């Protein structure tokens, strides 16, 4: 079932977009890591660095109308779904200009206008939500699809099994994307899950299921293409398991004693998703080093501007505490 680095040459325009989004995610997360360590950000922050190829390879097929559900590790999904990056940073600072007016923070960051239905503080919270969005798309005949990103920890929640079953019996246009980074918090996948692969579980629900190298954005792209086409054409759900790795801890402040030193080095270098994609880009002469460097610099500037915007933005006004609980409440 495993697919290897593809030789298919993707259109340059797509490649440029994918490269830029991966760099945006990496730089955003590296900046958040520094800001958190410097005491500028508070609360629980979970970083996506290392897993960029998954969000980007999947979202490359989505329009603004398509839906995604996310996890506690949600910044990468937001960026890949083209949420506003300064607005994201302001949200992490708890500022009024944040995507959720500062009320949600890192763990509840969302942008419904972009089809981003929210990061989630509850492991496994996204499966039913993606089914619901898929049901809306199906019954209103929009041809939109819903993607449910989830971690390996979530595949042991009841909602995983209920969500897959529901999507299968109703033939919902849902793509379940497992981000198997090997650890649920500090617990290895091999200990916590009775299956060898998350994708094995899809068969029990008669859902086409594939495993891809989640570090290879092209492989993710290809698997997602097939799944999105199936969903848009009424063929029902797909489960894609992406084998990946998170470069940082479960949360900021995690000493990561459960990881091996050599495994961290491997994923930071030769198995790094951005390095692998660069190699592919050069092999197929899709961008020059200068072009890639120009994107890196441009993104650096965007991240700096986002931080400045967030820091200079006001906190929400005190009355905001009481608003947005209901649409109307006499």
């Amino acid at each position: 079932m495993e697919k290897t680095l593809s030789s298919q040459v993707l259109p340059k325009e797509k490649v440029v977009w994918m490269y830029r989004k991966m760099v945006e995610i990496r730089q955003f997360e590296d900046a958040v890591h520094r800001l958190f360590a410097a005491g500028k950000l508070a609360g629980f922050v979970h970083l996506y660095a290392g897993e960029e190829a998954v969000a980007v390879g999947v979202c490359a097929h989505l329009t603004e109308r398509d839906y995604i559900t996310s996890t506690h590790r949600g910044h990468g999904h937001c960026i890949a779904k083209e949420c506003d990056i300064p607005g994201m940073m302001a949200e992490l600072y708890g500022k009024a200009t944040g995507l959720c007016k500062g009320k949600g923070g890192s763990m509840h960051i969302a942008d419904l206008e972009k089809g981003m239905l929210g990061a989630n503080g509850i492991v496994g919270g996204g499966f039913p939500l993606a089914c619901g969005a898929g049901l809306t798309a199906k019954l209103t005949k929009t041809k939109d699809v819903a993607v449910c990103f989830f971690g390996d920890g979530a595949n042991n929640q009841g909602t995983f099994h209920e969500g897959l079953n529901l999507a299968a019996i109703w033939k919902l246009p849902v793509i379940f994307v497992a981000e198997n980074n090997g650890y649920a918090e500090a617990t290895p996948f091999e200990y916590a899950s009775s299956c060898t692969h998350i994708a094995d579980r899809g068969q029990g629900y008669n859902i086409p299921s594939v495993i891809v190298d989640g570090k290879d954005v092209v492989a993710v792209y290809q698997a997602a293409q097939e799944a999105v086409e199936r969903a848009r054409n009424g063929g029902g759900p797909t489960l894609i398991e992406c084998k990946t790795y998170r470069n940082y801890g479960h949360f900021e402040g995690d000493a990561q004693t459960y990881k091996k030193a050599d495994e961290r080095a491997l994923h930071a270098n030769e198995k790094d998703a951005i390095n692998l994609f660069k190699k592919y880009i050069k092999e197929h002469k899709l961008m020059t080093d200068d072009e890639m460097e120009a994107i890196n610099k441009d993104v650096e500037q965007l991240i700096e501007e986002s931080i400045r915007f967030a820091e200079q933005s006001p906190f929400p006004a005190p009355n905001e505490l009481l608003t947005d609980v209901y649409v109307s409440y006499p």
Partner: protein
Amino acid sequence: MQRTLTFSQAINEALCLAMRKDEKVILMGEDVAGGAQVDHLQDEEAWGGVMGVTKGLVQEFGRERVLDTPISEAGFIGAAAAAASTGLRPVAELMFNDFIGSCLDQVMNQAAKLRYMFGGKAKVPLTIRTMFGAGFRAAAQHSQTLYAIFTHMPGIKVVVPSTPADAKGLLLASIADDDPVIFFEDKTLYSKSGEVPEGEYTIPLGKADIKRAGSDLTIVAIGKMVHTALEAADQLAQKGIEAEVVDPRTLSPLDEETILASVAKTNRLIVIDEANPRCSVARDIAAMVADKGFDTLDAPIKTITAPHTPVPFSPALEDLYLPNASRVLEVVSELIGDESLKAIS
């Protein structure tokens, strides 16, 4: 001189003592040991829970008795309940009380009701430890205060300690108890220190503690609000007003007698509860005093709670969300009619 421990250390010590005493006491939860089956990981380097509260227990008791679970709250909380009813004495950790949404059936319809439904033939000596409370910038799904839900349910006992010494004695009592108990730990109190007696001792469930004696008004406060009440009481004392601070310590059973006796002495009652106000423990206590102690009251009962909103992430809003000492002084000035109290608030 007594030794001091943090709230977190006191809980760890209680678990350790309970496990040494009775091999049927086991721990389970997400990463309560940490890093299960990671070959290179020494047990002393393992997490010991997401906040490190159970750190070191796996070294002494091994992974047979300190069980890492998958992220499957319905699965392991329910399994803990049935293990309790069939002979073990499990302490299950529900990492955040907010995650009760993933396993409420197992607590509400199974653990809490087995004994009654089976005509008194079952016992469920289960303790669920869980973290609660705002003030940690942890946002809407990791900051709630949900003890009222369980207080409402017959069949489960509800414990909310406010000091390290109480935490240790109440946890030992909870584990020894033959009924299911949910034990609420305020995440912002873990690092707070206090004197904690050595060795084994229990604090009975259903016995309130007077944290500060006073004659002018009674403040009943829960969890970290006990510290807010004490801070307000110190400021009131400077104005010559002596507040009595009553910490119920357990919400089910509730020590009505101690609360009513205090109100009978002071004739005024304020209840501070960081939970949302509707159907809250604050209003439950207010209603109980209105019902059973009305004749002893000289003023209306006041409750101070969070507003009827989820917990906001933004630090600017979260600070407004939580009750604080200034709000207590404002309410006292309304009760006592002393405008100068507002000035110090």
